[in-house]
């Protein structure tokens, strides 16, 4: 491997399920200490891409590597942790027992570095659950336990497949904080999520997948900038058909008293708006969020 900073890589990876091409010659690189968010609509291939990197599936064409090795190798796996989307952990085992089991896996390799139980419970916020049976926990608590199992070792890369689905806001914020702590230690993270604010909060880089291909890749700002649009909202009596005729305006819609204008540049439109209606109130301007960009990008790709 020429670049020693690369921890995980897909090169021209394809995967076919019957007639469905889940991944189509996908290239993806994850470097040391970076957070890569993989976004995309359902069925875009996010989970398949992760399964290839984790060695749970092998690509029909192309390559998947972890640290320049096949992902199935034990010495590659001791350096990764994962939280899968669907995992039914045995109901009858206690949380403390599950953590002990996964710590023993990381200790089973002579180079493996299990975290201490205290470290794991503090990072994952499961200290009060150790004596409880997994099956008796709420969905959010179970998700936290799965996170605890993912960080049972001091790993170089974490794979988190929709980690905060089902978590309340507190638990989600705690998990974000922990992820940032781990990244500060040099751990890379591959994250799939449906919560765009999660990608916005955590990711250094975003890859948008649609139909098994990458349709956009870059920093959060770069992705957001792909959609040069502003939303202007206000209360005004001006007819939306009139506004729609103004220069730079893409669309204007009315909901009761409120008007929403979509434009690529806000300033000339606001100037014209204030000139046309002295009674404009509750004026706000918003640049396109990641959500807008995401909708735009995946629509173009479809």
């Amino acid at each position, binding site marked *: 491997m020429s670049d020693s900073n690369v921890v995980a890589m897909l090169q021209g990876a394809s995967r076919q399920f019957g007639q469905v091409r889940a991944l189509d010659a996908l290239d993806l690189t994850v470097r040391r200490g970076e957070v890569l968010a993989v976004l995309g609509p359902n069925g875009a291939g996010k989970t398949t891409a992760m399964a290839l990197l984790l*060695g749970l599936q092998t690509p029909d064409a192309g390559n998947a590597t972890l640290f320049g090795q096949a992902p199935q190798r034990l010495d590659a796996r001791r350096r990764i942790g994962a939280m899968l989307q669907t995992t039914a*952990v*045995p109901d009858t085992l206690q949380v403390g027992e599950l953590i002990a089991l996964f710590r023993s896996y990381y200790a089973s390799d002579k180079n493996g570095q299990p975290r201490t139980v205290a470290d794991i419970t503090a990072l994952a916020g499961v200290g009060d659950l150790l004596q409880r049976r997994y099956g008796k926990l709420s969905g959010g608590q179970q998700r936290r336990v799965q996170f605890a199992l993912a960080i049972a070792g001091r790993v170089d890369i974490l794979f988190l497949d929709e980690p905060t689905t089902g978590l309340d806001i507190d638990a989600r914020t705690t998990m974000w904080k922990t992820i940032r702590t781990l990244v500060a230690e040099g751990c890379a993270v591959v994250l799939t999520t449906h919560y765009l604010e999660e990608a916005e909060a955590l990711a250094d880089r975003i890859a948008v997948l649609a139909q098994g291909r990458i349709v956009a890749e870059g920093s959060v700002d770069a992705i957001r900038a792909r959609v040069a649009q502003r939303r202007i909202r206000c209360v005004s009596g001006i007819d939306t058909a009139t506004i729609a005729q103004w220069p730079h305006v893409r669309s204007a819609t009315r909901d009761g008293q409120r008007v929403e204008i979509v434009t690529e540049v806000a300033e000339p439109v606001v100037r014209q708006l204030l000139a046309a209606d002295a009674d404009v109130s509750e004026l706000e301007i918003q640049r396109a969020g990641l959500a807008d960009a995401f909708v735009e990008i995946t629509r173009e790709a479809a």
Partner: protein
Amino acid sequence: MNAIVDTPIQPTAAPHMLPAYLLEAKYEFLRVLRTPSFAFPTLMFPPLFYLLFGLLLNHGNVGAAHYLFATYSVFGVMAPSLFGFGVAIAIEREKGWLALKRVAPMPPGAYLLAKMAMAMLFAVIIFIVLAVMAMTLGGVRLAFMQWLTIGAVALAGVLPFCALGLMIGARANASAAPAFVNLIYLPMAFLSGLWMPLSMLPHVLTQIAPLWPAYHLAQLSLMAVGQVPASGIGGHLLWLVAFTAICFLIARRWLARAA
């Protein structure tokens, strides 16, 4: 390309691997212990069957009592191996627990060895219960070495059925696995002469009996009680080893694809 069965099981795991092997076995044991709805019927079924059809239906025929004890000891080990492997692995595979363990650096073989140890523990318990019943209710009288030999055959008999169970668990989905296991378990017991001597079955069934692993185990067990002449041991062993290896290899292929 399978983390669990791809790497050959090392008979002497490195010392740092030992805790993982032991914990895996311990938690497998606790898991089963805390699921009495699995453990209890699995442990009860063979003795109950033996009581009804091996003991109560057989009055005072000493030869038949010895025959049936030998064959029921084989019948007893089939269930924990087939159900413990076939059904449990199908469930853990389908629900993603196996995938998570495969992603974590679980030492190769720990998972299968833990399940095998459980199946053997069950087999030992069932064998002891059957032996006590045979001694007290069935009037079976054997030399110490004969008891030991039948016990050893039963214990070793866990292996081919674990391999067969693994094959089922690698392919069948969780809801179909119990049905598949029953479909194999009960007919094979009958066709291998575990419930009644093969000589009482139609000729064609006698002819095909050597196809079933349970038949070969039963023959070894019957040799130990002196019911059949002790010859051709090598052939039976060879067949059982080949059967185990083939099932294991097929299961490995299927497991690799089933992730």
